[in-house]
Each structure stands twice: as structure tokens, then as C-alpha cells.
């Protein structure tokens, strides 16, 4: 097994065993998506209207729950020192961690989203757009989140500052993602929003491993 795969598998295993990964994020996402229709009431038209935005915001917040531990756990118990001295570059380490986070939260959130869209009476075609937008967009959430996680890895309550750092950076993802769903509802082609979202996701995934690695390096030297 390559060093990259070994780290990826370890992080997936840790996410599965510590209970703070997929199950927690899915539970949070499902509860938010259940509470909003209860709060808004049985206005089916209105529910379908807000579905894209609410589910996108819910998914981003749910993914945030486990992000603060991305590097922090390894930093606190000394594993990060050992990992940093391995032949794997810190850029690859960051990429492996981003991928592990997406596989353990972003992907399950995407898979459950069509079910939650039912609660909002979202038409099938718009649900498909929501699904695709989350599939494209959630990797960007993990990638941008990794930058925030690497910046706050040595802070004791870093999880509280993390949303303040990364939520503004994720605005484009929410705007394009929810925008694509709304466009579909209005009978316009959703491709415009999806394309912009894909561009944002590609840029985030390409750049963030470098930013995260630089920030990890800075933290290891303090």
C-alpha cells in the first residue's frame, strides 16, 4: 500500500470508530432538514422554493462538525510530527486528509440529500440538480475547510473560530449550488450554476493542499 493510501485508510478508519464522522454529520443534517419544514409550515410551494438553500447550508454546517479535528487530533498526540517526517509530503498529507473527510462526511451527506429533499416537496428534476451540485460542491467544502482546520490546529477551542474563517470562503459554493437548484425550479438551465460550482471546487481542491501544508508547517515550528 502506498503511503498516501495508508494515511487515507487510517483516517477513514478513525472517522468510522470515533463516532464523530459520518453518523454525527448525517444526524445533524437530517435533523436540520426535518426542523425547517416544521418551522415554515405546510406551504408546499414555499418549501420547494427554499429547499436548495436550506439543504446546502445544512450540508455545509454538518460537514463543519468534524472539520476542526482534521489536523488537531494528530497535532495533540504527536502523530503529526511522525507523519511530517515520513516520505509523504505535507501537501499529500493534506490531500489525503481532505479526501478522507469528504468520503466520510461530504459523500454520505450527498447520498442522503434526495431523501431529505422529499421533506421539502422538491420536484424530481430539481432534486437531481441538488444531488449533482452537492456531489460537485462538497469536495470544495472539505478542501476549504482543511485550510481553516490547519490554521486553528493548535488552538484549544479552534472549532469555535473555524466557522468564522471558512464560512465566508464557502459563500460561492452555497450561492452557485442553491442557485442551480432555484434555476431548475424556474425552468432555466441549471448548467450555469453547476459549471461555476465545478470551477470553484476544482480551484479549491487544487490550491488548498498547498495552503494547508504551509500552515501545518508553520504550526509545527511553534
Amino acid at each position, binding site marked *: *500500500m*502506498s*503511503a498516501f*493510501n*495508508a*494515511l487515507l*485508510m*487510517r483516517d477513514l*478508519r*478513525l472517522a468510522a*470508530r*470515533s463516532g464523530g464522522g459520518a453518523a454525527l454529520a448525517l444526524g445533524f443534517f437530517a435533523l436540520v432538514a426535518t426542523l425547517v419544514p416544521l418551522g415554515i409550515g405546510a406551504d408546499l410551494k414555499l418549501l420547494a422554493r427554499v429547499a436548495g438553500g436550506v439543504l446546502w447550508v445544512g450540508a455545509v454546517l454538518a460537514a463543519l462538525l468534524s472539520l476542526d479535528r482534521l489536523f488537531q*487530533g494528530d497535532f495533540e*498526540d*504527536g*502523530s*503529526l*510530527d*511522525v*507523519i*511530517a*517526517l*515520513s*516520505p*509523504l509530503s505535507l501537501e499529500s498529507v493534506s490531500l489525503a486528509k481532505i479526501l478522507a473527510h469528504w468520503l466520510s462526511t461530504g459523500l454520505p451527506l450527498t447520498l442522503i440529500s434526495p431523501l431529505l429533499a422529499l421533506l421539502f416537496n422538491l420536484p424530481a428534476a430539481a432534486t437531481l440538480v441538488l444531488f449533482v451540485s452537492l456531489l460537485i460542491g462538497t469536495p470544495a467544502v472539505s478542501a476549504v475547510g482543511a485550510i481553516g482546520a490547519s490554521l486553528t490546529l493548535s488552538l484549544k477551542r479552534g472549532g469555535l473560530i473555524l466557522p468564522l474563517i471558512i464560512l465566508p470562503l464557502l459563500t460561492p459554493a452555497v450561492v452557485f449550488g442553491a442557485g442551480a437548484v432555484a434555476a431548475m425550479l424556474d425552468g432555466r438551465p441549471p448548467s450555469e450554476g453547476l459549471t461555476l460550482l465545478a470551477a470553484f471546487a476544482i480551484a479549491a481542491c487544487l490550491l488548498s493542499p498547498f495552503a494547508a501544508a504551509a500552515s501545518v508547517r508553520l504550526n*509545527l*515550528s511553534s
Partner: protein
Amino acid sequence: MILSLTAENLACARGDRTLFEGLSFQLAAGQGLAVEGANGAGKTSLLRLIAGFLAPRSGRLVLKTTSGESDDAEERGRVVGWLGHQDGLKPQLTVIEQLIFFAHLYRGKTDADAALDEVGLARQKDFPCRFLSAGQKRRLALARLVLAKRTLWLLDEPFAALDSDGQALMARLMARHCAQGGILIAATHDPLSLGNAAIRL
């Protein structure tokens, strides 16, 4: 193959405070160095500096290997075997999972069972690490160090938490590492049983 590690006039500062300055030493293959000093004197900082995590405020470190001479921190990090004062283990993983992960991370292959035997943890192979005692965790970290097969060992309080058997094992592994042509630097309060040089910070 590592040939020598030379420190020339190293100075290290954390914030405004100078921890040490004018530190020079030379270690040839097969030599060990004990770093002594009071708490807070900068022993761990010196190890982190050698590992390349910290940059020295002045001076330089030169690593000579069969493929040439270099003072690049990243290149030095590639030969470092690290035993920090933290063990770097995950409570959720079992002993063998932990070790196989590090084996793949460092060398892409695994002979984890042999390393476990060596440090006397073969029976605890399938225990989750959260059930291990502090000394057993130290032994597991030691197995990782052996498995990584690095030539420059940096050890921070290597004897901490180990029982007398464990300390003998540590001393034996350190002696073997030097006999095989490695270099080791250990921050310790116990005198090294290697008959080697010591510096005081």
C-alpha cells in the same frame, strides 16, 4: 548511509528568549550524543531544530551522507527517526493496525510482527491502544522507531515511563543502532549507557 552530522555555532530562540547559542558538535556514524539540561533549557527545541521543524536563529547543521553534504532541513528530515515525548498513537486503533500504518507510511511495506516481538508486545497485538499502559505505549512507539529504519535517531526522554526491562531494551536498541552505523541524539536525564559524548544546555 549517514556519515556525520555537524552543528556549527547553533543558536535557538523562542520568541524573544534565547534558549542556547554557540552550540557546536560533530557526530560521526556510530556515535551517540546525550543532551542534558534543566527543564526548559531547550532540549526538545534542539531536537525539533535538528529534525527540521524549527529553524535555527543562527548557525547551521550539516548532514553528510554517502550521496553528499547538505544543510537542507527537509532533506535531514528524511533520515530522522523520531521518538518524541508524546507517543503519537491513536486510542481507537489496535496495536498492529497502528504499526502497519506507520510501516506503510515510511517504507511502503510491513514487517510489523517482527518489530512487535522485538519490543515485547506480541501478545497485545490486537488490543486497542487505549487499553495500553504508558510503558506499553512507549514500547509501541519504540517498535515504530525500529520499523522506520532511519539512520538519525532523535529521542526525547527515551526512558520515560519504561520499566527496568523496557529501559534495558531501549539501551540495547540504542547500542545496536550505533553499532549499525547510525547516529543518535537523546535528550535525557539518565546518563546514556553508551559511553558517548554529552552536552549540557
